[in-house]
């Protein structure tokens, strides 16, 4: 059972999951780093992206439209959520922020359950990527390979936005010292809204891109949320490269452990997190003293 091709295919699975986790986690970590809010509704947003894409796919039959719809819908959800709720919580304690985003997560999940029921929905992969691809020594589902590529492109786009644009510079400066950015005369209020929108978009994009791989249910976000927490703890809060590395590490741990015994996947993931906390409490790429 522990064959070479099995191992490599799990390695790919881990990479696919890891890339996905990296994308979702970077949204979570940028939002936290800039706004100081840990968004417990982030998993529910991932789920919403999947469902929004599902609806668009049902209406048009086009996967591309589904991806665009899922991403844009979440951008809108994120911006509305920030304007209506989140921004009233910037000056309230972390606990209140956790409580309100947790409540919103429940509202999102239960609203989807109300309209779509608890049964699984599926979105087929686009026709271009159906079937399997032969890699010479093994065969692998084409769409899963495509996911790695698609998410990698998304991460590169996010990287360019964060490291090569004026907005990205402001965001990164805000993560370092938001008071200073504010006093430099930059409209932090608007930046916060945009950042929350971008984070939500990343989650929504990941949600619809992942939809053909897994069965879509209202609870699909919860497991992902827990995994992104581990990613962020491992990578270091507020660090984009940390989220990418943490995501891939977590993805590989889950997938390689699952090959041996799926029951221990979380145990190993948790063991890795504990190890990081013991050796480097601020996370692999986190800065000391940022809490």
């Amino acid at each position, binding site marked *: 059972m522990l064959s070479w091709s099995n191992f490599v295919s799990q390695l790919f699975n881990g990479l696919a999951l890891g890339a996905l986790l990296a994308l979702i986690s970077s949204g979570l970590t940028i939002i936290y780093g800039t706004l100081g809010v840990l968004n417990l509704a982030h998993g529910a947003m991932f789920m919403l992206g999947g469902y929004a894409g599902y609806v668009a796919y049902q209406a048009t039959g086009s996967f591309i439209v589904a991806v665009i719809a899922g991403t844009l819908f979440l951008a809108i959800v994120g911006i509305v959520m920030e304007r209506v709720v989140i921004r009233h919580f910037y000056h309230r304690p972390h*606990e209140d922020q956790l409580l309100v985003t947790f*409540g919103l997560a429940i*509202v999102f999940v239960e609203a989807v359950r109300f309209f779509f029921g608890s049964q699984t929905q599926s979105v087929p992969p686009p026709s271009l990527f159906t079937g399997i691809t032969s890699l010479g020594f093994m065969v692998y589902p084409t769409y899963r390979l495509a996911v790695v590529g698609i998410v990698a492109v998304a991460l590169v786009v996010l990287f360019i936005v964060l490291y090569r644009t004026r907005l990205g510079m402001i965001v990164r400066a805000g993560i370092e010292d938001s008071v200073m950015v504010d006093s430099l005369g930059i409209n932090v209020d608007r930046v916060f809204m945009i950042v929350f929108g971008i984070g939500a978009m990343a989650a929504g994009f990941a949600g619809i891109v992942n939809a053909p791989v897994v069965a879509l249910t209202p609870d699909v976000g919860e497991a992902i949320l*827990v995994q992104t*927490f581990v990613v962020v*703890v491992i990578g270091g809060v507020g660090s984009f490269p940390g989220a990418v590395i943490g995501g891939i590490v977590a993805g590989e741990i889950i997938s390689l452990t699952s090959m041996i015994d*799926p*029951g221990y996947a979380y145990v190993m993931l*948790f063991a890795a*997190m504990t190890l990081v906390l013991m050796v480097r409490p601020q996370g692999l790429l986190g800065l000391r003293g940022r809490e």
Partner: protein
Amino acid sequence: MRARGILTVEVLTAIGLIIAPFVLPHLGFAPNTVNRILVWGLFGLGFDILFGYTGLLSFGQSAFYGTGGMVAAWLLTRAGFPNVVAALFIGMIASAAVGYVVGLVALRRTGIYFAMITVAIAEVFYFVEFNPLSAWTGGENGLPGVPTPTFNFGFMKIHFTTGWGLYPFLALCYFVGIVVALRIVRSPVGVVLRAIRENPLRAAAVGHNIHAYKLTAFVIAAAFAGFAGGLLGMMQGFMPPEAFTFDTSGQLVMQTAIGGRGTLFGPLLGATVWLYLQDILQSAFQLGAAWKLVLGLVFVLLVVFLRHGIIGGFKDLAYRLAHKREAEEPQAYMPSLADDGTGDAAPAPATHRVAHASASPAYTGPILQAMGLTKHYGGVIANADIDFSVNQGELRGIIGPNGAGKTTFFKMLTCEVPPTSGRIVFEGRDIAGMSVTDVCQLGLTKSYQVNQLFNRLTVEENITIAALAAIRGKFRLDMLKSLRKIPGLKEHVDRKLALVNLTARRRTPVAQLAYGEKRRLEVGLALASSPALLLLDEPLAGMSPAERVETVKLLKSIAQGRTMIVIDHDMDALFELAERITVLQEGRVLVEGTPDEIKSNAKVQEAYLGGVHGVIDEHEAVPS
């Protein structure tokens, strides 16, 4: 008289539990709903101590609820263990032990990290229950056949069944739980937990080992959760694996927030609202599965508009209606020490370190020496090669322009920040590298340049927090002991309150104090630690001229029989107070001498006046 006032909480709870079965059915409560409310309420007691009192929001309590429940259920169904109550306690102990280990990991971080780590850990428990341990836990089937308790007194046999037949047993468990929880929050440990919630840095700086106390709160919460988990299995006749889910933790968090955190009764009230609405929405309104959507919306609105839950909302309302100060007070269950003190005012001079204040005779050298003390922040040199020595009983002043490194110097002396190099010797002992808590316990502490108070607590509670560290040491598990039973505490607190002239304000919450009063309390906190050496970082900062005069007087009286080092920009005041003055400039000692020597020193004048030679302005120089 106030002691009786506190016991009324217990009496009222008992009365409420006794009449509940006669009243609640008329309001549409099914017996099983009431029983579930009690189990959630008991589960929440521990959680509220962790979240409401200590300020640690865990999203992973399901791990302990499930562990306690599974251990008890396993003993009763698979291991043939006969005694239900003993099984419940074993489950509780197992859960507490697990809580200790988990706490060691989770408490390495605070704030949102803590929340994330607890979520992750709870998820591990869920998966472990389902897979690796399914032979013991029944996996997704759980453990059926958990019995209810029977008590055989010989002459009579009481068997608790289900529904109202089980209620008396659960009510008794809840009552015992609330009595224990109330004792904990009224004990010295409870006071320290609230101090950690309000200001963990200061709680550590006045000499409490906050990590150990946080771990204590975590274990308490796990123990309550474990016991409640056992009751859950017993109540349902079946231990459900769902106890381990994230939903369980989430529901507990929401119920506690709905009812009101930091009240102990919040979780019970929240569970009542939650379960009652669930019943009503599902049956009366035919909402089916949508009940959770409605409750989710209600919860979000509540968090947005009613910050402290239903109980907190009523308190605010009562406060607004009454316009009295009383409504603010019940935040804490701490009995005021002021009232009667008739009980046992055992004057036995406190154990620990209080004796310190009257200068220990054993060691006669300089009380504090710093040698070659240096601090770099990256390339910035905050302090360079400082040699510094203070004798017993001396009052030393430190002055220097902004950015001279005065505060950094103090932070190193109290071990808040480690020096880059150099030694600090306090009473003949090298303290460099020790923790701020340990240094405070040795008798060296400081007041802060920016107030570091416990804002939602009263003046008296603030002083008590520091006094407890002085009397009890950095960690002690006297969590069932009343504050009044601590020998010497009342006298100690009274003395310090009088010393900083805040006796009349003892019941006032810090948030309502005037700035000058807060400043005095800041000094009072440091004083209440009974330090052998007291450092004051700009005690006069931001004060009005009138407040300055009063505070200088205060400092003079404090200085009697104490060793102090004072940083301030007010040279008039320092020249008047201090016997010797050290001038820092650009991280180095510029000169050191008597006030008169400093006044006429050319280097000092240059440092302050930028090279203009001459006499310091008359106003600055002449002591008033």
